[in-house]
């Protein structure tokens, strides 16, 4: 599989994603944000970090980087696109995904392990994992409080576009298991065509044997199986 990981000025999870993809045997390239060629990938990853210092709003300035036009056209042709954390913020700012990531309700930067529940198998990012599976995937953000108007939320629910929701170890979804105030405990959503996933948790930080949890591997495996 060919994977392109985009580096923006201020990205800081690009190498984590790059190394995980390499370690899984994929041809992986880091693509600088000023490039205009994505190198013909099967999957594009917009990594976490603080693109452009999060100036104005998280992800707001990254959307004007030259490579983003290529990312949009790749995704509109059906290419698989995964936005993690700041990558998710960029996807909402580009209009590829609905909603906005507001400041956490606690106003704090939250960095911890977090359980998320797979809400649907109907996506290339989860089809081999199975609905209801609880994953331990770390979060690290200050602006991850997913918000949208009630009409859009209903569309996300009705179209089965909510891919991950924050939960506790048992998979219960409630106020206590919501780390940042996200509407409906939303941790990750996809587009109606289901080829674009934005998620706040970091699967690339839990996908190698050198870190305490490896549940992020499930997501990389699912993508590999979907592209087989």
């Amino acid at each position, binding site marked *: 599989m060919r994977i392109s990981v985009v580096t923006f000025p201020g990205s800081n999870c690009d190498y984590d994603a790059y190394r995980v993809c390499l370690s899984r045997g994929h041809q992986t390239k880091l693509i600088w944000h000023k490039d205009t060629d994505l190198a013909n990938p099967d999957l594009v990853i917009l990594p976490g970090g603080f693109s452009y210092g999060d100036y*104005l709003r998280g992800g707001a300035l990254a959307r004007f980087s030259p490579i983003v036009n290529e990312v949009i056209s790749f995704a509109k042709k059906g290419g698989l696109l995964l936005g993690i954390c700041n990558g998710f913020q960029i996807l909402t700012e580009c209009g590829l995904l609905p909603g906005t990531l*507001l400041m956490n309700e606690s106003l704090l930067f939250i960095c911890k392990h977090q359980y998320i529940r797979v809400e649907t198998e109907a996506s290339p990012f989860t089809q081999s994992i199975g609905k209801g599976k609880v994953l331990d995937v770390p979060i690290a953000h200050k602006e991850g409080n997913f918000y949208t108007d009630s009409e859009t939320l209903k569309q996300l629910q009705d179209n089965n576009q909510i891919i991950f929701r924050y939960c506790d170890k048992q998979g219960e979804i409630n106020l206590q298991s919501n780390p940042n105030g996200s509407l409906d405990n939303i941790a990750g959503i996809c587009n109606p065509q289901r080829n674009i996933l934005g998620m706040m948790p970091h699967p690339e930080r839990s996908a190698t044997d050198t870190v305490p949890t490896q549940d992020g591997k499930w997501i990389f495996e699912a993508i590999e199986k979907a592209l087989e």
Partner: protein
Amino acid sequence: MLKAKIYVKLKASVLDPQGKAVTNSLHNLGFTDVLETRISKYIEMNFTSDDREKVSQEVEYICNSLLANPNTEVYQYEIVPLEQNLEN
């Protein structure tokens, strides 16, 4: 030359946890009559043009395409002469 004074505010329907924290601090300071605080962004932008209509159109476009997120924010602005503002 002209100056645009731009305010980008959270929509009334969007919770503002920063504003809430400031209200709590003000209550602790003794200002118990403060009902609500909302935190906004104020942006100043100077233009070489003297054409108000042109600058207005540009500011509208800039607000819609970059400064404000239409999902959560609203904007308003005024355009004033740059010289007058410098004197002040």
